[in-house]
């Protein structure tokens, strides 16, 4: 947490407690020199903007995926978890650790797989191109953009992106975890926490309340998201909530914890992680797995940063800015998407991203997700087919990407028939990312 927050150039950055707060570094996306950032010509949505990312469509593929075993508190370290995920991803690609010459991670909590941890795990010592703009959350979706630039320029041939957490193990010590990061922010300590507006479940319960007021969204509709995710977890061996079915009736009968949220609206706290290997499309053709190409990457930004209370459009996500650019880069429409996975800390965040990516009109998300729409076998919009962070594991989105790749290979547990185009929606609040993948 020692690096200063660096905001995109040329834009009003939103609340930035520079110099006075211990700013949550990991919550600010820095795409650095690889990108230019411009404000879009959209006056009606001036609370955020899209990053202007260079077109990388069809240039690289995800050729190896590996999930560490997801679990409740397991006593494992993040390095052990990332090591397992990385081993599996590299083997899945038919490569060795010595072939990997690029490494992406996020400095988040200081315990991720950096170059020294990689070499310590694999007993290697070769040169690695590294980037700290990888990892999970929004970066699980945006990392392929920077990887594509590095691969294209010859800086790396095979780039590994990993992310791991041990927050379930760490919870008794009250270190790490989503609330810890926010509790250290001095604006939150003085303007939010004293009034009980803390931690994240309370912010997003407020957002859900307002969404219900503006659009008529109901608890049954939020419950449909939780039920679909739980069904998928029950089809996915190893998912933390595997073996614990959930019906809509059970959801509605469960107690409220922060109205309108029930426990089942909120993500798990888990140990786990995942990794994926990227390379050029040309090299991908010589490797073992069916080709899953990166068709589009986009990033959207909210000027209000981590201060949701002041977000101009309170019931939206920066997917409004990320998704249109990404779909245009990929040359696809929402109707072309066979399977979707979104970063889902809360049911309402799934619902808003589905709206903001254009799968339905803004405000129609509740009606859209009700019934079986999100189920893998619905023929509609199969969603978080591994169970997501609500029911698979809270590994911050990295396992959403590996699941989309599995779907496009035809190798998922809850397989969508003939899935050709898959999308990941990453989210941190201040940023959202969209990643479009396609079978080739």
């Amino acid at each position, binding site marked *: 947490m020692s690096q200063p927050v660096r905001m995109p150039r040329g834009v*009003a950055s939103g609340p930035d407690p520079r110099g006075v707060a211990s700013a949550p570094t990991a919550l600010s996306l820095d795409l650095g020199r690889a990108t230019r950032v411009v404000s879009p010509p959209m006056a009606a949505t001036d609370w955020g903007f899209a990053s202007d990312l260079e077109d990388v469509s069809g240039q690289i593929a995800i050729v190896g995926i590996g999930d560490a075993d997801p679990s409740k508190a397991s006593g494992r370290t993040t390095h052990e978890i990332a090591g397992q995920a990385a081993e599996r991803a590299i083997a899945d690609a038919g490569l060795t650790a010595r072939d990997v010459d690029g490494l992406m991670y996020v400095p988040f909590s200081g315990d991720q797989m950096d170059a020294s941890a990689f070499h310590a795990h694999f007993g290697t010592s070769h040169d690695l191109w590294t980037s700290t703009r990888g990892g999970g959350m929004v970066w699980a979706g945006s990392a392929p953009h920077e990887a594509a630039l590095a691969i294209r320029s010859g800086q790396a041939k095979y780039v590994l992106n990993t992310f791991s957490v041990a927050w379930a193990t760490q919870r008794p010590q009250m270190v790490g975890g989503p609330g810890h990061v926010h509790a250290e922010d*001095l604006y939150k300590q003085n303007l939010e926490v004293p009034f009980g507006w803390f931690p994240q479940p*309370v912010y997003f319960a407020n957002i859900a309340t307002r969404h219900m007021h503006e659009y008529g969204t109901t608890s049954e509709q939020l419950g449909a998201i939780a039920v679909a995710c739980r069904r998928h977890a029950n089809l996915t061996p190893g998912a933390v909530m595997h073996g614990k079915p959930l019906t809509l009736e059970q959801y509605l009968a469960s107690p409220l914890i922060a109205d309108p949220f029930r426990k089942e609206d909120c993500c798990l706290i888990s140990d786990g992680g995942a990794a994926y290997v990227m390379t050029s499309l040309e090299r991908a053709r010589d490797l073992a797995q069916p080709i899953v190409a990166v068709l589009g990457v986009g990033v959207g930004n909210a000027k209000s940063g981590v201060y949701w*209370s*002041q977000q101009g459009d*309170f019931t939206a996500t920066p997917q409004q800015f990320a998704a249109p650019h990404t779909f245009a880069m990929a040359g696809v429409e929402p109707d072309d998407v066979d399977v979707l996975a979104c970063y889902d800390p809360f049911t309402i965040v799934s619902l808003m991203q589905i709206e903001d990516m254009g799968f339905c009109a803004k405000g129609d998300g509740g009606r859209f997700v009700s019934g079986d729409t999100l189920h893998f076998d619905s023929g509609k919009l199969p969603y978080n087919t591994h169970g997501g962070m609500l029911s698979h594991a809270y590994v911050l989105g990295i396992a959403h990407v590996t699941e989309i790749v599995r779907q496009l290979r035809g190798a998922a547990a809850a397989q969508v028939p003939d899935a050709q185009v898959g999308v990941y929606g990453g989210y941190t609040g201040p940023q959202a990312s969209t990643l479009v993948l396609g079978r080739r």
Partner: protein
Amino acid sequence: MHAAFPLPDVDWPPTRELFAGAARGELRVTRCNLCASLVWYPGTPCRTCGAERQEWVTVSGRGTLFSWSVVRFPWIPQFASIVPFATGLVALEEDPRVRLVSRIVDCPIESLHADMRLTVDFRPLRFDGLAGEVVVPLFRPGPK
């Protein structure tokens, strides 16, 4: 985390005047020196013009309930003795884009509704097991 957490740190410069004003019975927020729009959180760039210099002004203390949640689980242990409570966002009458985080008091949970009129009420905030208190702006229903 400062020692009095989850009480506010009344000495933290960016928000000190909010609590000093509350102790005097005034609701204080910041206003942009350049375009005169209200700015919240204090010290952040003006969302209207981007300027960063502000001054503190007193506002009416009237607003509407933009959103809320009734918190039933005490994520912060010091809140265990007051759950369930309503915490939410109050849109200020002077500029509804400015939303103060506060607690809604003197209102049955069942009576909370979006956009209801609210008035500030300055009350001491205390927590079990924690020394000291800080006067903060809370909101109650009214005027009708």
